């Protein structure tokens, strides 16, 4: 059995009594060493989930464990980059990295952090307040990677970056993760930036888990079918279907052979995610070893 990076059971988070819960009974398991994309529409609970895993929030109900510990006790082993990349504006880049060293004395790897900063052509003496959004993202990621985390939680990490920097930082991130076996959990609503980088998917909608599991297994469980509008898909689970004229296109979870009436293709990650986003009522599918998660 592989080790578990994050395990959530009946995890709920509510901000204020009157408001809709940000997370509502989430359960999933993420094996260590995977690179997981957390996707979902705005307000789906992605940021809340990452904050809970980072030990910054106390769940209203349920539990979340990271690396086999409570998040608050696993602080030293995880790194977290919040969506707004908070950094101290009055510090220089060099002092920001020194802060990482001073606050993580047992783990800090200065070479890694300095390399990421240097790749962005950042002046170590520049004050953080003078940096652009993308440059701040780079410093925040350098701070996170310099800690040598076992679990890296990134909330919308690439939003401020230009395409070139995004590509380069993503490559650096993935190389680093592959080299050290770091588990990376990355939230985004730009599905394209995750394609090719992730091997696990967690799709959230309205605070619930919609899809969870290894990406290839999730993709294999779905088929994109095209056929005549009067043909029946009743035997299968239809995630989403669209009719154009006399033709119907649908994303289905086949429960058996589809028959010759249908043209089938394998969906891409983007098609899989978009179909589920367009059909919020589609049933959830979990392929993440539910026996262990259903505590």
């Amino acid at each position, binding site marked *: 059995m592989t080790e578990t990076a994050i395990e959530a059971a009946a995890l709920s988070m509510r901000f204020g009594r009157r408001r809709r819960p940000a997370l509502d009974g989430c359960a999933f398991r993420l094996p260590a060493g995977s690179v997981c994309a957390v996707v979902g529409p705005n307000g789906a609970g992605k940021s809340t989930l990452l904050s809970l895993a*980072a*030990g*910054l*929030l*106390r*769940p209203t109900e349920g539990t979340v464990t990271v690396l086999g510990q*409570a*998040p*608050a006790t696993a*602080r*030293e082993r*995880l*790194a*977290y980059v*919040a969506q*707004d990349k*908070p*950094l*101290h504006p*009055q*510090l220089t880049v060099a*002092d920001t990295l*020194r*802060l*990482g*060293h*001073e*606050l*993580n*004395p*047992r*783990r*800090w790897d200065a070479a890694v952090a300095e390399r990421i900063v240097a790749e962005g052509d950042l002046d170590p003496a520049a004050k953080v307040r003078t940096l652009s959004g993308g440059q701040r993202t780079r410093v925040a990621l350098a*701070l996170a990677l310099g*800690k040598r985390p076992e679990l890296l939680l990134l909330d919308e990490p690439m939003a401020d970056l230009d395409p070139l920097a995004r590509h380069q930082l993503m490559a650096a991130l993935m190389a680093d993760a592959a080299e050290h076996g770091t588990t990376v959990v990355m939230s985004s609503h730009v599905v394209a930036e995750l394609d090719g980088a992730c091997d696990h998917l967690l799709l959230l909608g309205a605070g619930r888990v919609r899809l969870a599991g290894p990406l290839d297994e999730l993709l294999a469980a779905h088929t994109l079918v095209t056929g005549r509008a009067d043909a029946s898909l009743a035997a299968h689970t239809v995630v989403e279907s669209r009719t154009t004229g006399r033709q119907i296109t649908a994303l289905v979870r086949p429960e058996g052979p589809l028959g010759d009436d249908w043209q089938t293709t394998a969906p891409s990650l983007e098609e899989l995610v978009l179909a589920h986003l367009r059909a919020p009522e589609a049933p959830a599918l979990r392929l993440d070893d539910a026996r262990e998660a259903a505590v």
Partner: protein
Amino acid sequence: MSTALPATAAPTTGRPPRGPRGLTWTVLRLHRTALIVWCLALAAATAVLIWMYAIGDEARRGMSGCATPATDGLPSCAAVDAITADETYSAFLGLITTSLSYVIFPVAAWAGGALIGRELESGTARLAWTQSVTPARWLAAKLAAPAVVLTAGTGGLLLVNLWARQDDDPNLVGDWYLPDVFLATGPTAVAYPLAGLALGALAGLLWRRALPAAGVGFAVTLALYNVLERYRDRLWPTATRSEQGEFELPRSAWQQDWDITWGRYPGEGTPVSTSATFHPRSHYWPLQYVETGIVLAVAAAATLAAFRLLRRRMP
């Protein structure tokens, strides 16, 4: 290499040669501007006090008795009038004394705003809490480092102030029971800013935004300051003196109440008896100790509340 050093919040243990480390370094570096401003203010105040000490003798000559023309060893009044050192001495000592008694206000606003509120507002507190330090240790360092700096600063300035005041001539430096003189000449001078620090930090944790927290910190300490000033005379039992006829209390007595019993014609002649309640000079230290105790208790309660609040909020 230094990577093997433990992350220590206490500056006292295992200090490596290159100055503070870990959270202490972080707190001092983040609030370097405030530290510099504080040190400059202390240096300026100390320089002024040294100057005051230097002109102290001249100032006392400017207050001496005089005669016109100079007789019996008394200097001539024209010569005494010509001495301006006494006015300079009074004005600057008064300024330093008042400033020292007001340190609590900027400290509370800074603690609520820059120290805690801004970190919670901008999310940099979450940055610290996802490094290898727990929120409780973060708050401990945030309070301990400024507390040490404040105590050293106000304590030092207090001693220099007492030295510059020399014989405490009330004509030059004000009576001991004047609010700012009282607060700037004893342990209260050290206790008040610590209460400001704790109350400001608590306001920062409660409001989580810099500007409201700074305002609330300032307002709460203003209330504390005024309540204690209002009720200071009740912090220790007063002395009472009753005599037949009338009498006067010495200047060093802090008068609270006069009760005059008149004979048949009130306001005319001599009163039958007079009764006065007051704090003699000897009550200075009991009053100081009680007030310092109250203020430190407020500081301790606010600190405890801040830690409990943080613990309740964080997992």
